[in-house]
């Protein structure tokens, strides 16, 4: 896994995503492609000024790992809104849960290495209270 784009190809194969695409009531982007567009649903995607979505350019390993998490969290947010209005779409529910498990895995990996994002993190155990340690999200320079 050399960069985050390879990772998404890997994820697609791993979860056999094309099956979901064929059976979900709506067409859907993969998490990263949805994230950079701000929209998981190609049918709803509507552009202004920019003729292509802006790629995220992580500066280091920390930013790269955070991009995986951001993309998966975004997919969950957009699927959540879809599911509120389509609560019996089993394929969307299955996809939601696949992404949720994958997000949890990357959250654990990130927090073990770079400190807590969530107050539920197991990484808060120790002799120093790591929650207060930078970076703060609005100061992101990593």
């Amino acid at each position, binding site marked *: 896994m050399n960069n985050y784009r390879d990772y998404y190809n890997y994820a697609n194969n791993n979860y056999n995503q094309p099956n979901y695409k064929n059976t979900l009531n709506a067409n859907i982007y993969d998490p990263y492609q949805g994230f950079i567009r701000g929209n998981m649903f190609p049918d709803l995607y509507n552009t202004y000024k920019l003729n292509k979505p802006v790629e995220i350019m992580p500066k280091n390993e920390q930013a790269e790992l955070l991009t995986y998490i951001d993309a998966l969290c975004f997919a969950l947010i957009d699927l959540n809104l879809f599911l*509120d209005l389509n609560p019996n779409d089993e394929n969307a529910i299955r996809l939601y849960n696949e992404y949720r498990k994958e997000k949890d895995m990357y959250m654990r990996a990130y927090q073990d290495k770079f400190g807590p994002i969530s107050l539920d993190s197991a990484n808060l155990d120790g002799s120093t209270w790591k929650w207060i340690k930078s970076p703060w999200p609005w100061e992101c320079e990593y």
Partner: protein
Amino acid sequence: MWKYEKKLEYPVNIRKKDLKMAKYLMAQYGGPDSELAASLRYLNQRYSMPDDRGKALLTDIANEELAHIEIIAAMISQLTKGASIDELEKAGLGGHYSMHDHGLFPANPNGVPFTSSYIETSGDYIADIESDMAAEQRARATYEHLMDMTDDIDILAPLSFLRQREVVHYQRFKELRNYYLEKKI
């Protein structure tokens, strides 16, 4: 109950100070169709929703809008970082400095403070959802105006993301409204 995560929904890494854009972005921080107004509007309206779908959708969109307030705040904070009084005055932020220094304060670009009269709650769920559809469209238009005023990709990327969320939210509110009308709920 709310939980905080120490990350933004979409990353903000602005390299170039731009006080004029900081001032204009306050439209979405403390203006009538700001992220603040949207989150509080849906959080107040959700108690009038007639079924589980509506209660869920208004809760979840309100929750996402809270994350959008944080994105706008991060942008304003980075755009004004290290600005001198002289620079603030030249960008029309002298009034802001006199009352708030470099601090963030929810007001519109002309300094008019945020007011709860922006939060439309009628107690009638169709009236509320239709006002939400209109609010999402106005916010989308505001993001387009903001995008018209800059060519800095560091600013355009988060603005484009936020604009797209208005497009999706509008669609979801419309689907909820149509569902209620069709089902005669």
